[in-house]
């Protein structure tokens, strides 16, 4: 299970400046419907579904995708850019 400590090491390795969050009790994953069950040699495990979401300033979901396509962030990024354009710069 990835802890904040594991994430901190990962953040350092890849040099990201935004927060890496841990959902160790699966509350967020469950409420978003992205907790996935896997069967490995008869044992059940729960992992996250790979997903990208864009949530606007009002808390409304503007983009959501799950599964293999979510490995590529480009669609979500273009949604962000459109959103940014519509909102304008204050």
């Amino acid at each position: 299970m990835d802890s904040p400590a594991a994430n901190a090491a990962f953040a350092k390795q890849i040099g990201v400046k935004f927060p890496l969050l841990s959902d160790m009790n699966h509350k967020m994953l469950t409420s978003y419907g992205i907790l996935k069950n896997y069967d490995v040699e008869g044992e059940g495990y729960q992992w996250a579904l790979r997903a990208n979401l864009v949530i606007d300033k009002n808390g409304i979901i503007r983009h959501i995708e799950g599964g293999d396509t979510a490995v590529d962030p480009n669609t979500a990024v273009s949604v962000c850019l459109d959103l940014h354009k519509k909102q304008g710069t204050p």
Partner: protein
Amino acid sequence: MKRLLAVGLLFALAPAFTPVPANSQKNDEVAKLSLKVGDTAPDFTLLSDKWKTVKLSEFRGKKNVFLAVYVLAFTGG
């Protein structure tokens, strides 16, 4: 003025290694996104890699949020 387009939040969404009920095998590969575009994103509070809590609703009225949910740290997917 340059400003942040979105706050990127990556979730280290860990495998729990928690045994699940026997009927879970039927649910293999059927996890579905229960949310859709236009829905209000459920609020959450999670621990960051700096051991600080991050609450989605803190960004309300301030920033757009980009959530990238991934399974394991130190992986490319």
